C-alpha cells in the first residue's frame, strides 16, 4: 500500500502505527512532529494512530530560520 509521505509516494507493507513508521524511517520521535491527514498527532498517540493506504503524512522538525 502507498501513503503520501512529505509530499512523495511511500510504500508500506501494511498499516503501521506512527511509532512503527518513524522507527522504519530511523527517525527519533522526540524531535519531530507528525501530521496525519491534516491533523497533528500528539506524541502520546504515536502507538495508537494507524497510517494506512492513501493516507497523507507529514513529518517535520526544526531547522535553522529567522
Amino acid at each position, binding site marked *: 500500500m502507498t501513503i503520501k509521505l512529505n509530499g512523495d509516494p511511500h510504500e508500506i507493507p501494511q498499516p503501521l502505527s506512527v511509532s512503527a513508521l518513524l522507527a522504519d524511517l530511523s527517525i527519533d520521535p522526540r524531535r*519531530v512532529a507528525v501530521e496525519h491527514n*491534516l491533523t497533528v498527532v500528539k506524541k502520546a498517540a504515536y502507538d495508537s494512530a494507524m497510517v494506512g493506504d492513501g493516507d497523507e503524512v507529514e513529518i517535520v522538525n526544526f531547522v535553522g530560520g529567522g
Partner: protein
Amino acid sequence: MSDLVIAGRTFRSRLIVGTGKYPSHAIMKAAHEASGADMVTVAVRRVDISRQTESLLDYIDTAKIFLLPNTAACYTAEDAIRTARLGREAGMSNWVKLEVIGDEQTLFPDNEGLLTATRVLVEEGFIVLPYTNDDPVMCRKLAEAGAAAVMPLGAPIGSGLGIQNPNNIRIIREQAKVPVIVDAGVGTASDAAVAMELGADGVLMNTAIAGATDPVAMARAMKLAVEAGRLAYLAGRIPRKSYATASSPLHGVVGS
C-alpha cells in the same frame, strides 16, 4: 536594566536571534553564546526522509535558550496555522512567531491573513508574536486580537537597510499595550541601537549576525548595541536643536 517580559515569561536579553544561514552549526552556537540571547527562532520544515542530517537541536542548549518556532514561508493563514500547530508539537511550547507572507519579493506580511491567523491561534491557546508591518494601526489590531507582543519590521527581511520608518516604530511603542520587538531589517549594530533608542522592547535578527563576515563578533556587537540603545532610551536623550549650545563656560576665556 529590567528584563524583557512577554506573556509572563521573563527573558534576560532583549536580543532575540535566528538560527538560519550560519556558515556552520558550530559557528551558530558560538554566536548565540556571544549574543547573550535566551530566545532563538527556528523554522518548521519537512524531515529529509532520504538521509540522516545533523539536528539543529544538538547545537542549541534548550535548558538555557527558549525556542520560538516560526511560520516562515507561509502565504496563507491556513498554512501558518497548520505550521504553528506542528511547531507546538515539535517544540512542546505554545509560542509562535507568526508570519503570513504577502509578497515574495519583499516578504512583507499579508495583514489580512496575519490578523485571521492571530485570532485563530490565540483562541487555541497559543502565545502569538506576529511579524507585522511598521503600521501602528495594524499593531493595535493585532494586540486587540490577543497577540502577546507585536513585531514590526524595521526593513525587509534580510535587507540590512536598518530602521526605515523610525517615527512609526516610536508611535507603535507609544501606543502599544504589549511589548514591541523590531523584527527584521537590521544590518549592523547601530541599527539595533536605533531600534532600542526608539523605545522598542527588543530586537529580533538573523541575517545581520549569520551573514556577517565574523558572525560571533557581530553577535557580541549586537548584544552591546541592544544594551546601549536600551540604556540610552531609559536615560532620556537631549532634544535635537539646529544650532550649537556651548559645552564650556563662555566667561573667563583667555584674552577676553
